């Protein structure tokens, strides 16, 4: 059975306040322990040898000289791992193929990208490990490579996977292709729809891959003991999923692997996947010593998932009064070296902000010689929404309709039929648009070469498997053990606040901790903005179970009927109109007696949370363009977002602000540069340009609360949706500032200056 818990409106004492996060003091004092901060006695340092080629057959690997180096204790290569059949993972619920997982963590027949692991060593010091890597002799047969998505889709492109035939095409193709999958989402009659249109605008857009850019590189520490039990400490968004994947690729029992998630130094979707973990375990198994592996920043850029680069086409038709009658899009997404990009998520996000009768969205998942992509905050959606919200802006402008007004005319609302499946439930899209329109920012004056842009976003949010346990301690304090990793947003604080609210006790009486894989049942990764939604639901249900037991205990102690015991404000007290009066008992009093009245009291819940409420937002941005250099300055930024309910408003604002600044970086300066040899040119924070503090202004936030009916406190996810609009909003603002329309990301100074030059010489593309 799956679980939904209905929203109840009630007076709140803790929820909605801004207490300090439980991990806060440790993080400002340097005490917080991230994966790279863990060490064990006798540990070795593991290092990975990586392919210098974008595409090559792996002819031979000779590790003998490395093994002979004093201090080297183990070397692993493809020969140390079992091959895996093509099998889409049931464990972990990610649609991953274990044939690919095992090949991505350690190359087998071929290397598919610059940075692909080829061997790993464990040695007594980092310098010895590095020296050992140089002694491994690898013979490559270099093959032609393909980096660009459009090139990779061509019939004569170098093929990465000979066994890959395009899925989703009838009849089944007989030639291998880099197009792993084609998908079509549609409703209505597209042709008829476009016939009703008075105005049709169609354009092509291109984006580069961008990296999540978490500041903490991947790190892990593995210890394999002689009886086959393994302990793993790692920075992950989902330790249960990591356990499942490691156990599978290492062919070991899940129950023998204990994974402890450390403090996570940022993930944003990039820490949903295993990289060094199975290598560290394999090295530990071989050396019988603990093995620690920490990636360098260069390794992070060369070998861990960015999001897709893409080529997309968008065509929208509307009537002259601004009603959208038909919309079509094609999404061609790079998956990297192995199939499985976020195109499957981007397709349903393409037009879902609008109520449109006739829609067709075609997606292609395309393999190229780059690292396998990973999720990145609302995976795929920012890419396609850049195109759609740019075209919407053009339509509104062509019809001289205010861009927010145009969106309001077409806005999705409760009951709107989506083209990917269900009808939408209660949502707050219209509220975000009307609040944005009424915001002083929307009317503020602008100077020369300044412009204002608007764009909007939709993201599903998800629930999924979640468990938690709550122990009432002897003094009445509460320990909440959760299985959903706090991926930094502050979900630990939010859960503790909801539990405190349920009990009617102070926030600081509840201590939330993350349990390791031995402490709780399976939990899905913290992704899809599910942490506070699903984790919160499980925590609330655990609290309610414990409160039920507390009432039961008091009924026994006071010798009254259970229904006569009311729980309120942390006290078991006589229910109004109850049959029998009795002396109330506080939580602390019950807890103190618990041992002598039947044992300690706890609550737990294992649920498959359903009913996540979609999130919508509207962004307004002002920019100034330096017409001589093409530099774009962000002058002012306002986000209006429906979060359902902000449990901890400051942490919700933090999600909105962080997402928007990631979106600003994506818009302006973040991109991967590849040489003609397929080697990444900018694997570092010097030339992969994430925004610095002086690049951005304050990000104003307006929280809209349209409660999700399927969560006890009305929570929707809030972590992802605000990364979606910035690229389009900034492009629209640049258009309003200086008249150029940019359809390629990033909108870097060279791109802006070039477009300005073309506009001045009349060479503008329509």
């Amino acid at each position: 059975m799956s679980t939904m818990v209905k929203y109840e409106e009630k007076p709140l004492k803790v929820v909605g306040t801004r207490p300090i996060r439980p991990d806060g003091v440790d993080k400002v004092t340097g005490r917080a322990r991230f994966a790279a901060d863990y060490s064990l006695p006798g540990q070795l340092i593991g290092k990975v040898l990586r392919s210098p080629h974008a595409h090559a057959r792996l002819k031979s690997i000779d590790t003998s000289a490395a093994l002979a180096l004093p201090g080297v204790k183990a070397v692993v290569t493809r020969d140390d791992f079992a091959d895996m059949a093509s099998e889409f993972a049931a464990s972990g619920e990610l649609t991953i193929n274990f044939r690919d997982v095992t090949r991505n963590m350690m190359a087998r027949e071929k290397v598919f990208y610059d940075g692909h692991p080829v061997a790993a060593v464990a040695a007594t010091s980092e310098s010895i490990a590095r020296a050992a890597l140089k002694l491994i002799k690898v013979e490559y047969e270099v093959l032609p490579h393909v980096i660009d998505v459009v090139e990779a889709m061509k019939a004569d492109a170098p093929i990465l996977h000979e066994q890959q035939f395009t899925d989703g095409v009838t009849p089944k193709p007989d030639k291998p292709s880099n197009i792993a999958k084609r998908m079509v989402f549609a409703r209505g009659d597209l042709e008829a729809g476009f016939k009703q249109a008075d105005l049709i605008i169609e354009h092509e857009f291109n984006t580069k891959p961008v990296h999540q850019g978490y500041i903490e590189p991947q790190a892990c520490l593995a210890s394999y003991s002689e009886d086959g039990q393994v302990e793993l400490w790692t920075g992950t968004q989902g330790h249960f999923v990591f356990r499942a994947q490691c156990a599978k690729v290492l062919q070991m029992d899940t129950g023998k692997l204990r994974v402890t998630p450390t403090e996570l130094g940022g993930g944003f979707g990039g820490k949903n996947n295993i990289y060094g973990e199975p290598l560290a375990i394999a090295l530990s198994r071989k050396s019988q010593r603990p093995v620690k592996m920490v990636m360098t920043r260069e390794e992070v850029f060369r070998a861990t998932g960015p999001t897709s680069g893409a080529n997309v086409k968008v065509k929208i038709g509307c009537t002259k009064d601004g009603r959208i009658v038909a919309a079509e899009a094609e999404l061609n997404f790079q998956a990297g070296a192995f199939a499985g990009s976020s195109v499957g998520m981007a397709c349903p996000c393409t037009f879902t902000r609008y109520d449109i009768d006739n829609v067709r969205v075609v997606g292609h998942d395309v393999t190229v010689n780059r690292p396998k992509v990973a999720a990145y905050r609302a995976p795929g959606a920012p890419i396609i929404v850049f195109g759609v919200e740019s075209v919407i802006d053009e339509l509104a402008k062509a019809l001289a309709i205010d861009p927010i007004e145009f969106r309001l005319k077409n806005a999705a609302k409760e009951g709107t039929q989506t083209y990917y499946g269900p009808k939408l439930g209660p949502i707050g899209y219209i509220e975000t648009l009307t609040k944005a329109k009424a915001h002083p920012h929307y009317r503020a004056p602008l100077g020369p070469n300044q412009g204002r842009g608007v764009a909007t976003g939709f993201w599903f949010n998800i629930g999924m498997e979640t468990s938690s346990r709550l122990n009432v301690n002897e003094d009445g304090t509460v320990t909440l053990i959760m299985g959903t990793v706090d991926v930094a947003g502050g979900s630990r604080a939010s859960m503790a606040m909801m539990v405190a609210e349920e009990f009617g006790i102070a926030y600081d009486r509840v201590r939330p901790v993350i349990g390791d894989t031995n402490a709780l049942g399976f939990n899905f990764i913290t992704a899809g903005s599910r942490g506070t939604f699903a984790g919160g639901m499980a925590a609330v249900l655990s609290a309610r179970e414990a409160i039920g037991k507390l009432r039961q205990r008091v009924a026994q102690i006071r010798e009254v009927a259970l229904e006569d015991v009311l729980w309120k404000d942390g006290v078991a007290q006589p229910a109004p109109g109850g049959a029998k009066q009795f002396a109330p008992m506080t939580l602390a009093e019950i807890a103190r007696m618990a041992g002598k009245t039947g044992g300690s009291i706890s609550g737990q819940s294992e649920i498959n949370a359903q009913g996540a409420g979609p999130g919508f937002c509207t962004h307004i941005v002002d920019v100034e363009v330096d017409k001589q250099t093409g530099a774009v300055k962000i002058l002012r930024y306002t986000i209006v977002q429906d979060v359902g309910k902000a449990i901890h408003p400051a942490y919700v604002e933090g999600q909105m602000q962080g997402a928007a600044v990631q979106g600003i970086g994506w818009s302006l300066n973040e991109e991967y540069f590849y040489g003609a040899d397929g080697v990444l040119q900018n694997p570092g924070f010097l030339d992969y340009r994430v925004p610095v503090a002086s690049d951005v202004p304050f990000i104003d936030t307006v929280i809209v609360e349209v409660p999700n009916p399927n969560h006890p406190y009305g929570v929707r996810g809030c972590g992802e949706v605000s990364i979606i609009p910035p690229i389009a909003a900034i492009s629209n603002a640049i258009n309003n500032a200086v008249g150029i329309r940019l359809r390629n990301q990033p909108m870097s100074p060279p791109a802006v200056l070039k477009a300005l030059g073309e506009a001045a010489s009349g060479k503008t593309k329509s």
Partner: protein
Amino acid sequence: MNELRYEAPKTLKAALALLAGANGSARMLAGGTDLVIQMRSGRIEPELLLDLKSIPEMMTIVSKNGGYRFGAAVSCMDLIEHEAFAKAWPGVIDGIKLIGSIQVKARASVGGNLCNASPAADSVPALIAAGARVSILGPNGKREVPVEEIPIGPGKTSLAPGEIVVSILLPKRPAHSGDAYLRFTPRTEMDIAVVGAGVNLTLDGRGKCRQARVCLGAVADRALLVPEAAAALIGTKVDAAALERLAAAASAACRPIDDKRGTREFRIKVAGVMARRAAELALTRARGN
């Protein structure tokens, strides 16, 4: 595995001796902000690190005959915080202030910035525009050359084996002089210059430009002194027409490449813009002196 030795000699003489004994496998360490990165990435594998920061001549700033001599290993922060020097050579300080973050500037040195020989080094165009010279000590004694003669290509210098850049010398400035350095980067901070422009000029009593030097960074294989750009200013009141000619001359002199930091086309256009803006700032400063 070869062991990496570390030495911190206290005199130039000792440093020269160590260098001579190392057969080219030594690297000089000042701030280390380039060297440590290159070692960690495996791009270079020296056998000896020669830390120059214990040598007094390499670490001092002295005023001399109205000019300045500062040690090649003096940190950028020490120069920035030297009020008299900063007042005398604001354009040189402009360049030095742009070398990395505050953290990096606490370590990085002008000597290192110069000898690393990056065409995009921020202090170099400003020094060249300023007419700075370097004092070099080597197995064959001491020599002094203009800054522009040191870098000869990306990562390459004209220094002979065993030579050490000891100090940088800035001349005494005539009245009504001003200098400035500006660069273009995609971000506001933390980037490498896509284009840099240093301008140093001197006005006569009536506000006419009587001397000028213009140097561009990141638009060729080394910092580029552009006499044609300077000529556009000399004899003018640095008015709009002169600035226009300066920009055109600066753009015309560029021989840039396309890379991750900018396109060829972009660099050529923006070199003119940066040169003009730097000249305007230098002019304002000259009028204030």
